[in-house]
């Protein structure tokens, strides 16, 4: 029986150079591809994200683990049952008009990808119509970021635009960024206020 703990450990520790060899080894010793995915790669990521939430792991370590997992997936993909290993959902995220801040928003994007969501990173300084278009195209999860007190009113404009387009009920809206608060999120009718990426992940997972 293949020893999957090595794969779990390699994902957890972000051993990028070793992961493909270990996944291949697991396949060669008879482990089921879907077992390797769920019991090793995904499990490794779960360990990392849990420890990150507890404050023991640094964000660059989470990202390295995610990259390691993806590298393992490249070996595994041809053998997986169709449909498994696909994205948990699609999340579109962007920074509002007039605001050029993107590091926090990009971080949320990277971390959501690392735990299995497909992320459409829309960019910065975005017209409300860009967000509306995404929902028109079928995106169900929408993240809006702003870092300036002078630009957060744009969040309400976007939510109002979704209402006007009759799309508000078709999506869940997250708001985040330094000046945003839970009270503000409620006031403008957002579904979620995510104080950081970890909260965003928990909130998203709770919907599934």
């Amino acid at each position, binding site marked *: 029986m293949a020893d999957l703990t090595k794969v779990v450990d390699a994902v957890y520790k972000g051993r990028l150079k070793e992961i493909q060899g270990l996944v291949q080894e697991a396949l060669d010793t008879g482990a089921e591809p879907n077992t390797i995915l769920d019991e090793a790669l995904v499990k490794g990521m779960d360990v990392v994200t849990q420890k990150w939430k507890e*404050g023991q792991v*640094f*964000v660059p370590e989470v990202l390295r683990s995610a990259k390691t997992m993806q590298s393992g997936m490249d070996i595994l993909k041809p053998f997986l049952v169709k449909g498994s290993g696909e994205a948990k959902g699609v999340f579109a995220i962007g920074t509002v008009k007039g605001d*050029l801040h993107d590091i926090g928003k990009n971080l949320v994007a990277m971390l959501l990808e690392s735990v299995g969501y497909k992320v459409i990173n829309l960019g910065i300084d975005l017209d409300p119509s860009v967000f509306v278009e995404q929902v028109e195209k079928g995106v169900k999860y929408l993240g809006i970021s702003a870092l300036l007190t*002078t630009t957060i009113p744009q969040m309400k404009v976007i939510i109002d635009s979704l209402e006007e387009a009759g799309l508000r009920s078709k999506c869940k809206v997250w708001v985040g960024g330094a*000046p945003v608060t839970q009270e503000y999120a409620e006031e403008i009718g957002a579904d979620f206020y995510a104080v*950081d990426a970890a909260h965003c992940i928990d909130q998203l997972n709770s919907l599934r």
Partner: protein
Amino acid sequence: MFKRGKLGGLDGGQYRPLTDSDVRKVHQAIIRIMSEIGIKVANRKGFELFKSKGMKTDEEKKLVFISQGLLEDCIDAAPSELILHARGNPDNNIVVGGKRVHFGSGGTALNILDLETGEKRHSTLEDVQNVSKLLDYLDNAHFQVIPVYPNDLPIEKVDINRFFAAINNTNKHCQGGVYTIKGTKEVVDMCSMIAGSREKLQKEPFISFITCVISPLEIDQTYGDLLMTCAESGLPLSIPAEPLTGATGPITIAGNVANLCAETLAGLCLAQLVNCGTPVLMACTSTSTDLRTMSYASGSVEEGLINACAAQMAQFYGLPYYGTAGQSDSKIVDAQAGFEGAITNLLVGMAGGNFIHDALGLLEFCLTASYEKYVMDNEILGEVVRVLKGVEVNDETLAVDVTASVGPGGNFIQEDHTFEHMRNEHFVPTVADRQPRVNWEKAGRKDTYTRCKEIVRDVLQNHKPIPVNEEIVKAIRAKYPNFVQ
């Protein structure tokens, strides 16, 4: 109210984290970043200015490669020291440059801990007025950076009212960030009215501006416009860069310092190209990132290290330096708020930072200000200033004569020598409690926070800075529909 003294401008430079050889290595890295990696100048007018000076550019990526020659010319063009004036009280003018150390507040917090309830709430124009008044009173605040944002005003009214609220309630130099070009022009015009004319304001600037460079290595459209508008005004300008370790700048202190210097110097170059001779403060707001949460860590010890290194680099270039220290990431005025502020203020002060902002009042990643913390930090700064004052050694201070007259087994309490030196040799705390326990208990067992709160209330009630002449205020009111005070 406690006794006030004037101790800004003492020499720092005792703490030097970089050796001379390190400074030269950082300088070489700065040259490489500016001339080989390049600075993105998204602002079209700024880009063209660099191009017109023969700088190599990349049109598509909007990159400007700033040559060592242009950098040196621009550093030479900028004054190596400048006087930041104080309205209403020339004794509060500060000479910024060399290794002379001054401390002041920083901006711009969006919230404040309410003086009555202790709860966090949005700051208002009234808070700008009150904090300014408090800063005018606190003797170790040598200047003011406009501390909080007036959330009760729409954006078009912010610049002019924020500056006036600060200016009218303090007789110390006021520096502030700006939000709109129109607002910036209104501020310059309003202050020209207060000074008597634009020329008088330029000659004795009691206000100055802050416009940021975006890390890593970018002068963006909005701040580029604001930077050029401020440079055109001829008033002094701080151009801070804020690479955060491992996020918007390298994780290593040396790399972070090289990046931040390249960024602020790129801004300095642009200001000189717009208006040769513009007084610019080489400026650092850099600190570390807590990579567990990706929080900006405003109270980290590395902030002290980075800002001390940057002060050394400014001294190397012969430029006045705006640094950062003194904040805390605590949410309340507690032990963390005290020790984080104390360590960074001491480090950057001892490095000889000229214009150390954020030194008082800020909590929670600079998002929240606290009236009580301004008072507590003023006391910390008093102790830092005492350190800078150093130890004077001569026959009088060695005190062999008085020791001889007291002799073995005597005491020094009644000696003239004691009487003459006791107030100037020692820092006299006003917040720290040194009462016997029984007296402290009788007085209500007050902690630091409560003692600070009482001082704040006293100052806000009794301290009266010299306001702007009422006739001039009337004229300002008549001229600007946005003016609400």
